[in-house]
């Protein structure tokens, strides 16, 4: 990606609260038009990062830029191009959905006629036409989230930041929400930053993701490459099941120098090696005429990353 396509940029962004480091030297670049997923367990510092991007919290160290504006020095400029959906978004319960949107539009200093048209358009887009004149107090959680999306889009932002947009809504609602978010990027050409701990939901729609644990970005890139980044330098663990005798297999793998250790349990071999030897191993098995029943590189897919970093709520094993 070219330098001039960078929309959001942070340089050594750090936030400490009384000795506790919420965000540690974050360096992040988000490019124009992409959907970037900031994934991490609860308490990893995602929301703090977002608040610093919006100029709502001052960083202890480092800088953040959105569209070239310094987020701390020039929050007005940043907030006029960024739409932000907070986690647990709240609306004025005794106002209708439309009235809530109108208030946001007024805060953005929008022209009243344009605002009304835009409200109607957005209400329809998020599928709330029938409930638009009901008080928000009667809305379900999914409807609130969708109203939140409309609220974010009122000011026609170039950048949309969504904090846990799918949290606590039903599977059908999640589907709707994800398709709305995808539209934001593909049809409207907006840059989208999603923060979430629900990796499985978010990975479907993100172009790139960053994995954020304990205030540090431990991996960042396209989902396919992530696992490699995370497991880089660590010994590889290979699960393999082959349709042959145990001894035959052991003699077959003897020729591989990279292998450190082999364990056997109920027909399943676990091979620890210095590098990825899948290709060579499969070729060797084929040449002997055995058939391969199961092969899996542990730590290589998102499920492993997930269980490693997320399920433990940020405790790195």
């Amino acid at each position, binding site marked *: 990606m070219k330098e001039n396509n960078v929309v959001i940029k942070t340089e050594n962004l750090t936030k400490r609260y009384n000795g506790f480091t919420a965000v540690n030297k974050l360096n992040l670049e988000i490019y124009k038009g992409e959907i970037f997923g900031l994934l991490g367990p609860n308490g990893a510092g995602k929301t703090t990062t977002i608040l610093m991007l919006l100029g709502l919290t001052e960083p202890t160290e480092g800088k953040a830029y959105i569209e070239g504006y310094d987020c701390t020095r020039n929050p*007005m400029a940043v907030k006029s191009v960024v739409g932000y959906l907070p986690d647990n978004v709240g609306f004025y319960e005794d106002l209708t959905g439309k009235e809530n949107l109108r208030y946001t539009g007024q805060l953005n200093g929008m022209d009243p006629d344009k605002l009304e048209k835009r409200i109607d358009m957005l209400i329809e887009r998020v599928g709330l036409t029938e409930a638009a004149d009901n008080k928000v107090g009667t809305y379900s959680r999914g409807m609130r989230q969708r109203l939140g999306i409309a609220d974010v889009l009122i000011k026609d932002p170039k950048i949309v930041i969504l904090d846990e947009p799918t949290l606590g809504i039903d599977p059908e609602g999640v589907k709707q929400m994800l398709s709305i978010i995808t539209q934001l990027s593909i049809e409207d050409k907006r840059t989208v930053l999603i923060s979430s701990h629900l990796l499985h939901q978010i990975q479907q729609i993100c172009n790139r993701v960053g994995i954020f644990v304990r205030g540090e970005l431990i991996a960042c890139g396209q989902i396919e490459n992530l696992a490699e980044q995370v497991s880089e330098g660590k010994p590889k663990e290979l699960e393999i099941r082959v349709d042959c005798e145990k001894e035959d297999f052991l003699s077959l793998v003897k020729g591989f120098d990279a292998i450190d250790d082999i364990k056997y349990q109920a027909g399943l071999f676990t091979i620890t090696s210095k590098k990825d030897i899948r290709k060579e191993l499969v070729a060797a098995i084929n040449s002997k005429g055995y058939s391969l029943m199961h092969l899996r590189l542990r730590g290589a897919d998102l499920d492993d990353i997930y269980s490693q970093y997320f399920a433990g709520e940020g405790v790195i094993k």
Partner: protein
Amino acid sequence: MSVGTTIAEKLKWLYKVLLEDEEPQDDYGELKRKGLRALYRKELADHFRSKRFLIVLLLIAVTGIASVYSASLGIGEAVMEEGNDFVFLKLFSSSGEALPSFAAFISFLGPLVGLSLGFDAINGEKTRGTLSRVLAQPIHRDAVVNGKFLAGVTVMSIMTVALVLAVGGLGIILTGIPPSLEEVIRLLLFIVITIIYMSLWLCLSLLFSLLFRQTATSALAGIAVWLFFAIFMGLLAGLIANAIVPIDESSPATLILKNQHLQQNISRISPSILYDEATATILNPAIRVLGPILVTQAEGAIPGTLPLGQSVLLVWPHITSLIAATMICFALSYIVFMRQEIRA
């Protein structure tokens, strides 16, 4: 457009900011102004629609009307006793047979108005999760506090003016006495002091809504301070004064006087006492001095009333203290809000 230096210029600026459409001066100047205006209007609409406002208004209106009615019944007696100067003002300052005076009611219930308008101003928005959404819009952070304060003051001003006009009208009907020009001016001053007094409580409740997470806590804190100042401060001042300057029946007059002065000054910590003294002096021109004096000091004084300027001069410290306390509370709220973390 810059904020002017004189009060008139400042008021003009405020008016333009809140109500007029004007061309922008710098890139975000227009946005800032529109944001503040939107906030102000929203708060105003919220107040007028809220049941809370209706309840407080009813409470104040009923007690106000009842007290003026009660005062009007005893007005003949009062005229006979004290002469017929400033009879119209007596409707507001004198208590009837059964009820305290209008001014005393406002002194007691005014804080409730201020507290009820502000106790959940910020923490309420935080609990509902609306604050971070509002602050993510291109407005300045202080616009939220400013908008809420200005809307509260506006509501209280409308309320006070309407109430004084209503009970004044009722008084004219009941007694048949129209107010003189000086009485009208004194009533206007009374309204201004009342608004400042209520604003002080609004600022205090705003501060509590920033300091406490729960709206119930901030409401309770406000009520505690209110009751303390309205009821216990006077009692406490007596206790402290007696401890510092002990007196008994055989004490010399100077010592008793010293004790009384001390007691009065301590009780003046309470904004309610300040307000009581200020409004009593403004509404009753016959009050020439606040606190006790020796007989020798009063010797040779010609009984009569104070001109308006002298009445104002007598309570000038009271008025400035009330304004100062209001400003301190507001400044504290402002600082706390600007430094507070937004995270819910």
